[in-house]
Structures are given as C-alpha cells and as structure tokens.
C-alpha cells in the first residue's frame, strides 16, 4: 500500500544482478524470511520430486491390472481402462456419444452465457440459447424421438449428470430465487414473512437433509399413482436449495441499487413490475453476476452429494469404477486425483473468471 506512494526504482543491471536484487527483496529480507524461504524450499523438495516420480516417471497408462502391478508409481491405467464408465456411468455403451454431445452443448451454452456478460453482442442470445439448448440436451439424453433409442434416466451418470444437475439447478432456481428476493424486500408483511421463513429455513439446513427430504418425503407428498424418479427428485431438491441462496445474492444486488432509482420509477408513475423490469433489475442483476457464478461453482461442488442418495454423478462413477473389480480398489488415489483434477479445472477457471468480472464491473463505478 505505502509502496504505491514511492515509485519502485527501474530495474537496472544484467539479468543476474536483477535476479539477485529481486530475491534479496522477496526471499531473503531479514533472518525470519530467509528461514521461511529455506523451509519452503525444503518442503517443495520433499513434495515435488517424489510426486513426479510417482505420477509420471514410474507411472503407467496400461489399461490392465497386470500392467499396473508391474510399476511402483501411479496406475493411470485404472482411469484409462474405466474412462467411459467414469465419464458416462452406466449409459448404454454404443449411445455414449449422446451424453458427450449434450455435455459439449451444455458447456458451450455455459461458456457463452459467461462470455455474454462481457460482450453485449452475445448477451441478447443468452436466453434464446438456453430455451433452445435445454430441449436439445433433454432429447439427446432421453432420446425416444428422431430415431434415438429411449434411455431411462436411471442410466444417466458421470460428468454429464453433474453438469446437468448443477446447470439446470441454477437456471430453474434463478426465477424462483428472484421472486423470493423481491418477496423479502416487499412491503406486504405476509409475503415478506413467507419469503424470509423459506430462505432462512433452507439456508439453515445442510443440502444433504434437503436431498434426503427430496428422496424420501417427495413420494409421500404426491397423490396416489403419481411418481417421479430419483433423479428428478434430486433435481427438485437442488433447485429448492439453490433458490434460497440465490435469493440472498439477489437481495444483495437489490440493496445496492440506490433508493433514488426506486423513487425515480415511482415518480414516472411506473407500476411495481414496470419499474422492476425497466429500472431496478437491469442494475441489480448486473451487480450480482459474479456472486451468481460463485453460487454455480458451489452448486457444482455440492452436486457430488447426490452420491449419498444413490445417484451416480461424476464422483459416484469414480467410486463405481473402483468397486467394479476388487483388483482396482487399491488405486483410489489415481481415481480421486482424476476426479479432483476435472473438478478443479472447471471450478478454478470459473472462479478466476468471476473475479475478473467483478473487477471489470467495478471499473465502471470508479469513473
């Protein structure tokens, strides 16, 4: 902070000289920092070379149990041999191009929606993309029309399931959460109370209890003869849960819109819904984009909990593959590392993008 006040001296000297100055300042500044540096380097030396030895040098990709038994390092062969099972679960083998395509479509729409925040030319296509995209994904996954064979959703699994549960979860939670947020801000006591009670109850309990409720209690709620399957129940549970969190995100956005904007709407004699649609929401929603992306990231991580109620999402299929043959069971480190790497890639890149968006949005305010 105070460094900003005095400009840093321009780098001078040869590369080596500059490197020495830099490391003096950043690594060996006083005895305590020197100690920390030496400790950290020792830690890295202890961690990294064995990790490379295990993960790359001594590892194998051979997709057989025998091949894995021969090496001392990681058995990536486990992932290699079970890749289709891990990625797509028990979806019929010949039809697995369909979830793959659905996943690509979904990823494409998600990326375009995220990019649309930045580029206005893409922005107007976001809603049409979802309106067209979701049915396409549904047709690809379920089939039954256009010559595609029907695949029951109890066979769905793997990465497509994880992405579908979280993306559909957030899309459907969006309007519901918005209504809840507006309800919480409302002047009408009954509507306000109902919204607050819903939001606080859902936010006060863990997701797993909502999923249990969805999987055990929903069947009891329905009239005789009507039943919805496990996947749909989990999806509804996720939507109900996410809506409460999104409502709080939206409330933050609504509260950040200055009071004068509401009054401006009133003085133009706009109705409540007109002034919301034309004045308040465009401003509020722009502000909540980064926290909404963060909600999506938590959602993506939290969908792994559907394993507990017996669905095979991406984490579930890794466990399934580990159990598929007792000989594979001991390669859990490789399996979990693979799943962790995929989750990390998706979550980390979205988190970075959301942080970037936040900075961009703030830029506008600072003018």
């Amino acid at each position: 902070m105070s460094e900003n006040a005095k400009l840093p001296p321009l780098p001078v000297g040869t590369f080596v000289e500059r490197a020495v100055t830099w490391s003096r300042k950043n690594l060996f500044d006083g005895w305590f920092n020197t100690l920390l540096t030496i400790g950290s380097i020792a830690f890295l030396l202890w961690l990294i070379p064995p990790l490379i030895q295990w993960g790359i040098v001594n590892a194998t990709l051979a997709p057989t149990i025998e091949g894995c038994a021969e090496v001392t390092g990681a058995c990536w062969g486990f992932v290699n041999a079970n890749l289709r099972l891990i990625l797509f679960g028990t979806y019929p083998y010949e039809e697995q191009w369909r979830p793959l395509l659905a996943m690509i479509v979904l990823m494409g729409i998600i990326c375009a929606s995220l990019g649309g925040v930045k580029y206005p030319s893409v922005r107007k296509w976001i809603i049409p993309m979802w309106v067209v995209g979701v049915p396409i994904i549904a047709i690809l996954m379920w089939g039954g029309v256009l010559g595609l064979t029907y695949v029951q959703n109890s066979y769905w699994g793997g990465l497509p399931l994880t992405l579908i549960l979280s993306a559909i979860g957030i899309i459907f939670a969006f309007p519901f959460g918005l209504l809840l947020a507006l309800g919480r801000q409302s002047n009408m006591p009954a509507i306000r109370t109902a919204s607050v009670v819903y939001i606080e109850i859902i936010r006060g309990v863990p997701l797993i209890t909502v999923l249990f409720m969805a999987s055990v209690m929903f069947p009891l709620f329905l009239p005789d003869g009507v039943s919805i399957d496990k996947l749909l129940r989990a999806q509804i549970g996720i939507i109900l849960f996410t809506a409460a969190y999104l409502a709080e995100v939206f409330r933050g956005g609504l509260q950040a819109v200055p009071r004068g904007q509401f009054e401006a709407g009133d003085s133009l004699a706009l109705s409540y819904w007109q002034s919301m649609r034309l004045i308040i929401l465009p401003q509020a929603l722009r502000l909540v984009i980064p926290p909404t992306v963060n909600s999506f990231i938590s959602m993506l991580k939290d969908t792994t909990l559907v394993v507990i109620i017996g669905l095979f999402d991406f984490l579930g299929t890794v466990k399934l593959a580990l159990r598929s043959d007792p000989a594979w069971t001991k390669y859990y480190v490789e399996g979990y590392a693979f799943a962790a790497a995929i989750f990390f890639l998706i979550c980390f890149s979205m988190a970075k993008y959301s942080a970037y968006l936040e900075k961009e949005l703030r830029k506008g305010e600072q003018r």
Partner: protein
Amino acid sequence: MSKPQHAHGDVRSKSFVDYLNDENVRAVLYQVIAIGLIILAGWYLVSNTLNNLEKQNISTGYGFLDLEASFEIGESMIDYSAKSDYATALLVGLLNTVKVSVLGIILCTLIGTIFGVARLSSNWIVRKLATAYVETFRNIPVLLQLFFWYALIPSAFPHPRDALEPLPGVLLTSRGMYLPVPVADNAYTLMGIAAIIALVVILFVKSWAKKRQDATGQPFPMFLAGLGIFVGFVFLAYLIGGAPTEMSIPALKGFNIRGGYNISPEFLAVLIGLTVYTSTYVAEVVRSGIQAVPNGQWEAADSLGVRRSVALRKVILPQSMRVAIPPLTNQYLNLTKNSSLAVAVGYPDLVSVSNTTMNQTGQAIEAISIFMSIYLGLSLLTSLFMNWFNKKMALVER
C-alpha cells in the same frame, strides 16, 4: 386513480373497481391470495402424505423414540448400547456432530489464519505456496476430499500389530489413532467446575480493570492475571481432588489395541476433510479482513507513540474483526452443516444415526423433521450469538 375524485368531493360512492385500484386494498388482496395458495398447497401435500402413510400402514408421531434402537454405534460420548432407545441414539449422533464441528472450527480457524496471513507475506515463495494451498483445496468438492482421506487412512497406516509410535504412548494404526488418557477420576470433574468458576472470576476482574483504566488510565496486565487465575484454580482443584496420576496407555492385547482413547478413521477423515476445506475459506476471510484496515491506521497509532504490539491488539485487530466476523460466522455454519457429509464415510453423526433410524422404523418424516430442526436450531443460535457479537463490535457512528 380514484383519489383525486374523492378529494374534489365526488358524491359517487366507491365502486368495486375503485376498491380494486386502491393500493392498500390490493396489497391485502395479494397477501390473502398468497397465503391462501400456501395453505392450499400445504393442505394438499399433508392430505396426500397422510393418505399415503395410511396405505403403507405407517403410524405418525414421535412414539418410536422410546423404542429400543437395537443397532450399535461405533463411537459415543455417552453410555450407549443397542438396548438404548432411539432418543439416546439420536443424542449420541448430535454429540458426535457437535464434537467434530467444534474441533473442526478450532482447527480451521488456526490453519486458515496461518494461510491467510501467509498469503500477504512479503516472502514470494511463502505467498505462492499459501495461494496454491487455498486455490487447490477450495476448488475440490469436500465430499471427494472426505472419500480420499477415508480411503487413505486405513491403507496408509499399518495393522495394529505393527502400529507406528510417533510419540511415546501415541499409536497410529489402520484402525485410527490411539492416545493415552488419564483414567477417569472425580478430580477431573472438579477441575472442570473450577475452570468455569475461574472464567466467571476473570470476567469480574476484567470489568473492574476496564473501569479502573477508564477512570485513572492505569492499565492492568489482564492476560497474565487471567492466565494465573485460570491455571491456579484448575491446579488447586487437581490437588484437592487427590492429584490422580494413573494413565490408560494404549497397548496391543491379542488382535486389537486396548486402553487409551481411540480416534476412529471415520472421525479423522471427516475432521481432516472439513478442516482443510473450510480453512481455505477462512484464509480468504482473514486475508480480506487484514487488507480492509487502511495502512493509515498503523501510521496513526505510530504517530501517537503506541507500541506496535498494542497497536495490533487495540487498533488493527478490532477493525479487521469487524469485517471478518460475519463471513467467519458463515464459514463456521458451513462447516457444521457440512459435517452432515459424515454419513457418506460412516461416521455416526446426527444425519447418519437418523438415517439408520429412518430405515429401521420407516418414520421418515419424523426423523427428517428432527434433524432438520436441530440443524436449524444450531444455525439460529449461532446467528443470534454472532449478531449480538457483531453489534457489540460494530462501528458506533456519532
């Protein structure tokens, strides 16, 4: 717009349409409709549920809590056997949840603070390492981490026969960790009571010291005095209790280890997983808390001649706490709620025990309502406490 008409003394009585256009009437109407819809939906669901339950021959009510549970629970902080009733089983689960949450909260605060401070270090390599830790573990689902630790512990540590002994008396085996503990004695109960009394005494001394400092400006070495009071009271109780020295030391007997205190692999997996995951969030909270205090505050304290350690305690920390407390509360609540994932690795927490209960008795609604209201209660209690604390810490603007 009906109002101007009335203002001009229009004799026409209000028509039905006028009523509909009145903002207040509309508000009431909307609310009546909303409540009506909620009640209707609720009634529909309840009637369906009762109907379905009747068909499945499941009786409603909490009577099952008095029945014999007839299942074992791996670890319990109170007396429990398969002969105990369901209520006791659920209490065991709740205590296990509280145990892992409290320990997790303490540990994740410690670790999170270290990494949060390390991310602001002037040392480049320390900063990068801390960033790598935070970014890695917060972007991997916590359940995956739990599964990983749960798979790792039994396979990474040896069979009890050749247990590792990193410290004398501490054993590491595939069945968890064993610690030597003092054999139960009345003296320890006495020490607990003494500790509570000591805390009350410290509170009194503290308020007296504050009053004196406000009146005379004389500071009082509260930390040392508090420590002295606490240690003195507890040690005195230990002596009065007869100073027991008997220890229960874990040792191999037959095929298993007897004695000592066993920390199960399930508990360790849940504790490590939750701690590591939540500590990354705590680190971010700590970092933003420290960054939120402007440098000018340090400089102001400096120019008043306040010592740096005092400035940290009296100027910087109170301000960063103000920023950090609400998000920290959220993280503690998240950790407590995430402890419900214990069900996935077989640690007998509240949800896990309720799940077993639910499967045995078929009382799904009752079991779910019990654990949901307990979590809700825990959350509400924590938020109430934190709101009170926050109000106490909040900026008092004139």
